[in-house]
């Protein structure tokens, strides 16, 4: 009889409470496991780690829902960008990010003639390749002790074959900045006709240095490149612009993409530029706060980085190589860019995120063996 009843008991379905209990136990087990798992912390990418302002996405989405069958007109955007720097709209060229505009500038300036391009180094990692692709020869010029480009060294490196010099402010990877006076001095000391390519992709993090793009009104061989990938958190839009001097419309036209920038990118750039006060101060403050937080956490240790601006930190240790630092952090699932990417074996580049990430980085660095 018991066997007979057991046969039918096996067809009794589990009550919803029992099913839920089983699922809850599985969830608790997964959560418990998640606590012990260390998530990956990517501090290698220089792109901003948060999404862009929601209104930027809205503006881009709105643009996509309009007449995307038509070619775009960059006129309004150029006006908005120019107004931010107090220059004429004809001196502003929107493009697919500062990197593409720098590539176009190298091609335009070096085309046919080649020549040397002294680059404040370590600087933006792709620049030497872009110079080489354009037929030029990149020449690394060491930075000053503060991690910023040294105008005197750049000027000294410029010779008769020099067509342009390149520097960044704030500098990627060190965060060092140059001010308007330094750029003016550099322009004065360079041989006549030499272009200054100023990569200002991180400039939105720097308020102390002033608006270097406005210098194009007084320096006739200055090109300033701005990006939306960093402080505007729009790396996926591939959006940037260049500002050049008066009377160089032909050169500026060669920097522009053949048929302009996409409608969503234009809409996003226009909103971001017209509303900088709504979204940049918070990120600027966050980057500065994390720099200070990391500096405070590393005070008294063998680790140090130049005081600078922005979310990128050029970290070194008195007792470890950059490769050792990167390997030590990677073992704790924190990924940074080894300095070997710039030919430097003493440093690593760290892209700062929020306070939690900074604390985890600091804790991992404190575990470094002597």
């Amino acid at each position, binding site marked *: 009889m018991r066997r007979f009843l057991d046969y039918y008991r096996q067809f009794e*379905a589990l009550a919803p409470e029992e099913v839920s209990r089983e699922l809850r136990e599985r969830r608790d087990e997964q959560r418990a496991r998640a606590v012990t798992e260390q998530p990956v912390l990517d501090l290698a990418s220089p792109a901003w780690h948060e*999404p862009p302002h929601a209104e930027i996405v809205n503006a881009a989405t709105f643009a996509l829902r309009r007449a995307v069958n038509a070619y775009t007109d960059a006129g309004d955007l150029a006006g908005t960008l120019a107004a931010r720097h107090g220059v004429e709209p004809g001196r502003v060229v929107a493009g697919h990010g500062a990197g593409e505009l720098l590539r176009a500038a190298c091609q335009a300036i070096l085309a046919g003639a080649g020549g040397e391009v002294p680059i404040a180094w370590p600087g933006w990692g792709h620049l030497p390749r872009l110079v080489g692709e354009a037929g030029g020869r990149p020449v690394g010029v060491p930075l000053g002790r503060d991690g910023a480009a040294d105008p005197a060294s750049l000027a000294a490196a410029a010779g008769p074959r020099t067509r342009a010099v390149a520097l960044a402010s704030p500098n990627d990877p060190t965060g060092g900045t140059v001010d308007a006076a330094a750029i003016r001095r550099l322009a004065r000391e360079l041989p006549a006709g030499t272009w200054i390519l100023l990569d200002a992709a991180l400039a939105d993090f720097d308020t102390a240095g002033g608006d270097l793009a406005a210098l194009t009104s007084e320096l006739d061989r200055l090109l300033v490149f701005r990006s939306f990938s960093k402080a505007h958190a729009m790396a996926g839009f591939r959006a940037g612009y260049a500002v050049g001097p008066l009377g160089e419309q032909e050169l500026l036209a060669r920097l522009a993409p053949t048929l302009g920038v996409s409608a969503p990118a234009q809409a996003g750039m226009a909103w971001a530029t017209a509303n900088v006060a709504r979204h940049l101060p918070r990120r600027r403050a966050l980057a500065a706060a994390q720099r200070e937080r990391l500096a405070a956490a590393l005070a008294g240790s063998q680790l140090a980085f130049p005081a600078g601006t922005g979310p990128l930190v050029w970290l070194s240790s008195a007792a470890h190589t950059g490769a050792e630092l990167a390997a030590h952090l990677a073992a704790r699932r924190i990924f940074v860019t080894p300095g070997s990417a710039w030919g430097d074996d003493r440093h690593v580049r760290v892209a700062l995120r929020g306070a939690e990430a900074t604390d985890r980085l600091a804790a991992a660095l404190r575990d470094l063996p002597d």
Partner: protein
Amino acid sequence: MPRNDPTDTGGLFIGRRPGTAPLRYRAAPERAGERRRRADAALAALVLALETLVCLSLWGPQPVAWLWIGSQVDYRTGSISLALLVTFAGMLATLMLTLALAARMDRAWRILRRAAGHEQQQGSLSRIFAVTAIVVLVAFSFWFAIIEGPAPSLAPR
């Protein structure tokens, strides 16, 4: 990671509708052969028929039985109040007992149906209860209005 993907609903509308989850057993049942399944199917039909009869008893036999008992109480005690109390309390008590019995039969029916090879999720008690109520109501109305005819004051015999 940026989370501005418009298709990312945060979990809303993902998964099945409530009450449509497949049956979950404590362990995968070991099913018997075809003959046993056919016998289980026949047994399930029998249980369903009994369940229907039990439900039907709620609408006729049980109230009539309690009215008879109430009349006996009235006859023996001479108290109409006590008779009414016994009738209603008794009807309520047997209603509860009948429903408890029907619920057990319904559970047995579900298990037999599953043993017979059907994915039987729900019982049939609520449907039987509703259908028997409607059938009895229709039958009573037919008897009252057609067979028995209107009240004598309206259509004296």
